């Protein structure tokens, strides 16, 4: 990129539809953390915030004295089967790490994007955050839905609304390398567990 990162503020609208996989973005405004248990609870009992243009952060933060101490992304793939209902209700952005499956890639088409944030960079993330509230606190600190105001959190567009997916390109390449490796190094037996 020759220009600086794209500045975005929640709630997100159609501006996300022009983003392309690999674009750098700085996101400001409210996001909602949600992991496995929160997704299940929202499916059952409803979404406790306005989902229109909302951004979900796959994160179980470490919170103390109403402050976010550490809040890096969790593995998004665990939410592969649990994200469709949120996008159906108007959610425009998902943030996490490791990318998501083909189901989510299709669900994002024409509607929203998946942002990647560097895994494990929880101290860095918290320096861009202010805690605003919480839902489902009974699920425990990691699984509750925390309401967090972001100030220019640096992200990369991992999956765009056209179906481009940087994780998928890397995955495809790695698969090809592995097939070649199996044939060259050790014969197909070496890869029998695949």
């Amino acid at each position, binding site marked *: 990129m020759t220009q600086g990162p794209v500045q975005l503020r929640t709630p997100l609208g159609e501006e996300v539809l022009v983003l392309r996989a*690999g674009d750098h973005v700085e996101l400001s405004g409210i996001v909602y953390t949600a992991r496995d*248990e929160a997704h299940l609870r929202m499916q059952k009992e409803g979404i406790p915030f306005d989902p229109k243009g909302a951004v979900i952060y796959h*994160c*179980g*933060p*470490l919170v*103390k004295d109403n402050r976010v*101490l*550490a*809040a*890096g992304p*969790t*593995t998004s*793939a665990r939410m592969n089967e649990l994200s469709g209902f949120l996008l159906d209700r108007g959610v425009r952005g998902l943030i996490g*790490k*490791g*990318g998501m499956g083909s189901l989510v890639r299709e669900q994002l088409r024409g509607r929203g994007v998946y942002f*990647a944030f*560097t*895994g*494990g*960079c*929880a*101290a*860095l993330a*918290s*320096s861009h955050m202010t805690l605003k509230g919480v839902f489902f606190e009974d699920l*425990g*600190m*990691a*699984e509750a839905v925390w309401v967090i105001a972001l100030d220019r959190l*640096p992200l*990369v567009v*991992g999956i765009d609304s056209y179906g481009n997916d*940087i*994780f998928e*390109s*890397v*995955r495809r*390449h*790695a*698969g090809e*390398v*592995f097939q070649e*490796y*199996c044939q060259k*190094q*050790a014969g197909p*037996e*070496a*890869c*029998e*567990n*695949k």
Partner: protein
Amino acid sequence: MKDNSPLYAALAGATFQAFREAAISLPPDVLRVIDRAAAAETNPVARGEFANILKNVKAAGELGVPLCQDTGVPVVYLTLPPDVPLTLGLYDAVAEGCRIATKKVPLRPNVVDPLTRHNTGDNTGPGMPAIHIRPGERFTVTVLPKGAGAENSSRIAMLLPSHVYGIEGFVVETMLHAEGKPCPPVFLGVGIGGTFDLAASLAKEALLLPVDTMTLFEQQICDSVNKLGIGPMGQGGDTTALAVKVKTAGCHTASLPVAVNVQCWANRHATREVQW
């Protein structure tokens, strides 16, 4: 050993201190390996990820907060000198150190009942902390807080004994399946031999070995993993694995257990001497 005995307090205190150190800072050999890889990385996206990682290590140290919000589940290794008897009290003291660390560092309460998923709130529970005890010369406590993203990518296989050459392939394949999920660039602990359970224990213990040197065998596996090009966070790059460390044990002539314990770039561990 009673709650108010000097030994109990010393072990609980040392365990707490070790958890604090492990959560906030990385061991010097781990940092050296990350610095080296960051300098050598040629992929621009990957260089950006390394920059974030190095900024994060600095921020955690300056703010005194955990590197990662996933402060893991508590895995603890104790060495006992001849004059310290192995008692249930040792287990209680380690659990107490873990509870104190959960409150004071703080650590995120991660430990739940495996079936009801009820969170115990203090990172202890039946079998947790996972405590491994061995005899030694000095009384030390080593903690290895283990995050779930990397742990969930770990695998074990009972290979055919005639397929020793397949060990490397199994490690490479483990990373192929893991992709960006375990927060690469990773450290890979590989346990070879023993039994089904021992191979897994060896794989985890291998993560405690110095990571800034590798044997030829380890280096070859590491190079093969890096050819996958998965890169930091699965977004592509030269560095998928920072190091591979192997531990072996004797095994049945008809067996070849191989376990791969995947560890994120934050290979957190710390050791404290227990003084009482």
